[in-house]
């Protein structure tokens, strides 16, 4: 593969964004999710389907229900990524909190939220991550919790560092936390990434820019919440998550309580 530089990627990012703006102007629907076929993210080339998705409108579909989790599936320590080892991790201690909602604004209760992230220097505790930045023996970077009755989740962690990757020469990911989310239905399943406000790497990153809608892309960026920061302890970022996709209404009754 020939080495690509950032300017080529920038050109492609702009072209994709212009094409989306034109489609919108011509009456196309707002695109909330990234296109799976997004050339600037090179790994998508052979991993996106060419056929259109087949719509399923069957009210009996199994996918309108989904897996459930409970107190047996998490431990209290899981939500504090700074307390999983004998010592304290290096970096800026933060709390990340928000609500998990469906598109009607209803909270998704008692559901599993999973996160994973790089450490403060931008290194994952994964053997395939060979970025020459230090591993932190006191930080793994994996967390889990269940949402509360109002859909709230909350993690204490360390602000992750940006890291290089090999999409093109001088490719760097903006700092982010990976999130995995379940709704009441399998159709609402979501894996995504949360970003930090004001990161100068945003315009260069093909993964974030794959969300070509400006407003949608903005929804991936957390808000700094000064009123929720803990004095002399940690800064707080707030990020609400809204799950897409239909759910069976009957599920709600069976699962409350």
């Amino acid at each position: 593969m020939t080495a690509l530089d950032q300017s080529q990627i920038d050109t492609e990012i702009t072209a994709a964004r212009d094409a989306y703006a034109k489609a919108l102007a011509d009456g196309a629907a707002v695109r909330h999710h990234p296109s799976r076929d997004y050339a600037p993210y090179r790994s998508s080339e052979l991993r996106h389907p060419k056929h259109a998705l087949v719509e399923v409108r069957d009210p009996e579909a199994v996918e309108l229900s989904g897996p459930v989790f409970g107190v047996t599936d998490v431990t209290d320590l899981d939500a504090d990524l700074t307390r999983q080892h004998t010592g304290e991790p290096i970096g800026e201690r933060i709390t990340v909190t928000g609500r998990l909602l469906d598109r009607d604004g209803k909270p998704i209760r008692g559901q599993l939220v999973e996160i994973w992230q790089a450490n403060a220097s931008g290194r994952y505790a994964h053997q395939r991550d060979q970025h020459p930045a230090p591993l932190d023996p006191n930080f793994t970077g994996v967390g889990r919790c269940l949402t509360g009755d109002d859909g709230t989740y909350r993690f204490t962690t360390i602000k992750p560092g940006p890291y290089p990757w090999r999409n093109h020469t001088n490719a760097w990911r903006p700092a982010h936390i990976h999130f995995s989310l379940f709704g009441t239905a399998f159709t609402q399943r979501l894996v995504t990434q949360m970003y930090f406000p004001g990161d100068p790497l945003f315009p260069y990153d093909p993964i974030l820019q794959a969300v070509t809608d400006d407003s949608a892309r903005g929804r991936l960026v957390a808000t700094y919440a000064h009123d929720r920061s803990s004095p002399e302890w940690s800064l707080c970022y707030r990020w609400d998550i809204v799950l897409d996709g239909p759910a069976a209404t009957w599920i709600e009754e069976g699962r409350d309580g």
Partner: protein
Amino acid sequence: MAELAPTPSQTVGPFYGYALPFPGGADIAPAGHPGAITVHGHVYDGAGAPVPDALLEFWQPAPDGSRTGAPGSLRRDPVSGAVIGRHGLDFTGFARVPTDADGHYAIRTLPPGGVPYLAVCVFARGLLHHLFTRAYLTDADDPLLTALEPRRRATLIAIAETERVHRFDVRLQDNGAHEETVFLDFP
């Protein structure tokens, strides 16, 4: 009521391996259950190469047709925090399995009640938004299958290798030689 705009998807990336998979994630069926079946296969990309960094999730009704699932897929030891596996009494209906270096996965489950399929969700590095499909254990007069032309329909039907072993391959992209798996949208 005005609908809230959804949070966009982003790729699972290459480093989910120490966060999402868990011991016993592929074992929905209780250990040693005589009715257990294996569903396995490969995930392939558009060049026909195996995808070693995909993550598959399965969701299905219990054998009695119940769709309420049950907690306990990643039951934990409260002392060590280690995953100690399902307790074998409840049917959680949920599996999560990463592909291995050869792009292969295998799960062990019980046949779903009331429907002939398992719901499948595919995540992978390079995939910006997950894909849904279904692994049908038998061909059926099902609203989805009936609407598909035979060549497309065939991609959703697992091959019965033996009475209890079903092969279901996932092809992310048509490469000319092999039909792309039918992927689903739930509007």
